[in-house]
């Protein structure tokens, strides 16, 4: 993978640069040598299952946890040595958006605005408008729904016009509509030149939102690369739904670019398969699908649907650790 050379070329320009980050808690290594860069204006995904060290790493990025080794540079400043300079450029929500329930939304924003010079009342109004909270901003936060707290958390994170926004599992607890809004919001911020660092344990989330991704498991970064090279290329199961299944299986098995997969040979989530129980599960060489469809049609088989499906996160890890994708 070309990420190593890319990193050294780009590291001057990186908004966030993590080098050899390690953490030992009570004699146990939780994080081993984590390194990656986040570039200006990109949406960077941080993908890993629960307990993989995502949150610990994020906490080290924002000075909540002191690393045992390695360093974190934000905007050219070392977070551990110059937190005042480094964190000026960062907005973050670590885990849940925590705000003071006994204050109103506005008072919360005012509170955090006071912690940094140069944020006036007009800027508070601006971020309130950005997250669309004008209606309820003067109500006490304890009356807010989780979605509204999330918005308030984001408003707080945006107050200081950060260059980097860190969101830890931002879709947790949101309904589908909220998730869609969040996705659009993230795109909008990135289009304005902000870098975003988004952690998630959901492959699909990262796929939909991010440009590049670091995949972490067991406290190690398994790979860093663009979403298309890391996930999409490893993600191409193809499900076929046809009217004459047996003929289709016979035809497909004769093709070189197709590999048929039986039960237990694939890593597709059960939830996907229960919806289409009679699907033929295959992997297909890149770019071969249109030709295969033509062959099926020519063979008198009606194609109802062809579907690309992602593997589970576990399987992706397996593929990344098996092959040469280990960074």
């Amino acid at each position, binding site marked *: 993978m070309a990420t190593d050379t890319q990193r050294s070329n780009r590291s001057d320009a990186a908004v966030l640069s993590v080098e050899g980050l390690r953490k030992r808690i009570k004699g146990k290594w939780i994080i081993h040598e984590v390194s990656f860069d986040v570039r200006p204006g990109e949406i960077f995904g941080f993908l890993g299952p629960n307990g993989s060290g995502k949150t610990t790493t994020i906490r080290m990025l924002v000075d909540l946890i002191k690393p045992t080794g390695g360093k974190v540079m934000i905007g050219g400043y070392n977070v551990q040595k110059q937190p*005042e300079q480094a964190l000026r450029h960062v907005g*973050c929500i670590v885990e849940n958006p*925590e705000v003071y329930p006994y204050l109103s939304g506005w*008072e919360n924003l005012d*509170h955090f605005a006071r912690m940094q*010079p140069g944020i006036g009342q007009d800027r508070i109004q601006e971020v309130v408008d950005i997250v669309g909270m004008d209606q309820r901003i003067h109500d006490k936060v304890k009356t807010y729904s989780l979605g509204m707290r999330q918005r308030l958390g984001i408003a707080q994170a945006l107050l*200081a016009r950060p260059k980097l926004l860190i969101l830890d599992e931002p879709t947790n607890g949101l309904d589908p509509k909220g998730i869609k809004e969040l996705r659009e919001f993230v795109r909008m911020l990135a289009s304005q030149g902000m870098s975003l660092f988004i952690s998630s344990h959901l492959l699909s989330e990262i796929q939909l939102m991010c440009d590049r991704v670091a995949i972490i498991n067991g406290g190690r970064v398994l790979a860093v690369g663009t979403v298309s090279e890391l996930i999409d290329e490893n993600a191409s199961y193809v499900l076929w739904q046809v009217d004459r299944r047996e003929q289709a299986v016979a035809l497909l098995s004769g093709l070189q670019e197709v590999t048929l997969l039986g039960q237990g040979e694939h890593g597709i989530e059960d939830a996907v398969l229960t919806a289409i129980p009679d699907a033929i599960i295959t992997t297909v060489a890149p770019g071969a699908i249109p030709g295969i469809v033509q062959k099926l049609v020519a063979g008198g088989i009606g194609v109802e649907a062809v579907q690309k499906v992602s593997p589970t996160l576990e399987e992706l890890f397996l593929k990344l650790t098996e092959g040469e994708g280990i960074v």
Partner: protein
Amino acid sequence: MSNLLPLIQNETLKIWKKKRFFVILFILAILIPIFTYAQMRMAENNKDKFTDWRSQLIQQIADYQNALTSDRIPEEWKQYRRIMVQQLTYYLENDVDPSAPNAVTFTRGFMNNAVTLFIPLLVLAIGSDLISGERSSGTIKMLLTRPVRRWKILLSKLVALIFYISLTIISTLILCYAISGVFFGYGGWKLPVFTGFIINGAEVDTSGVHAVPHWLYILMQAGLAWFSAVIVGLLAMMVSVLVRSTAASIVTMMATIIAGTILSNMAAAWDSAKYIFSVNLQLTSYLEGAPPPIEGMTMLFSVGVLAVWGLIALIISFGVFTKQDILN
């Protein structure tokens, strides 16, 4: 310093909005009338028995002296009575009523009794969730990821805490005076009080005794009570840094303070107990010349012990807070 002020404003605002201080005022407004009533009943009772405060004082001295001859009373208690006899005699000889019923005397008495337990309790209401409250609500993650050094955050919290402690002492004085004045009258500011008794074992050295007007006495008392309260506040802050949950933090502090009160009543024979902070909280009793909980303790000693405890609490609080990992 300029960027510390908005932080202090934040912390002061948060304590205010949490309505903790209102709780304190509410407790004071409930309890003071109860004590006032009790005091009033006592005064009425005495008025029935004695026409003159002098005869009451003579009776009191006689009671103490009777107790001194009894074999059933332990030696430590006798010592206390011996000292009281000498003090009361001094008051009698100088023709000053030590407990003239008025709002100022009541306030003096209340402060003297409140300083070991009641005021520390009120301080805990504010100080115990200073840090642990931010931890349990998770807001500490927001607070510590802003571009502000951690020691500044803690310092701003400390300043806000001391501000509210001062306010608590002032409110106690004002409420005491205002409420008890309704029953006892608002006079008595200029009545003399004797201070400067020096206690040597069972003997009271009256050579340093001088009369001060009541207002000055109450001012000195409030200053000492404030000092005790601030030390309790510093310790509460330290526990709040070390312990994750607010409940645990309150219980820890309560236990040590109550233990101190119990110890000072029974540990006269255990000499090294005098280095425990909560045994030293009653600074105000040195002012009125009451015998110390443990022989050999003086005002200077107690202030010193408390100062050392406060300093250690500060060092631990700042040392731990600026370095600790926020894991949850």
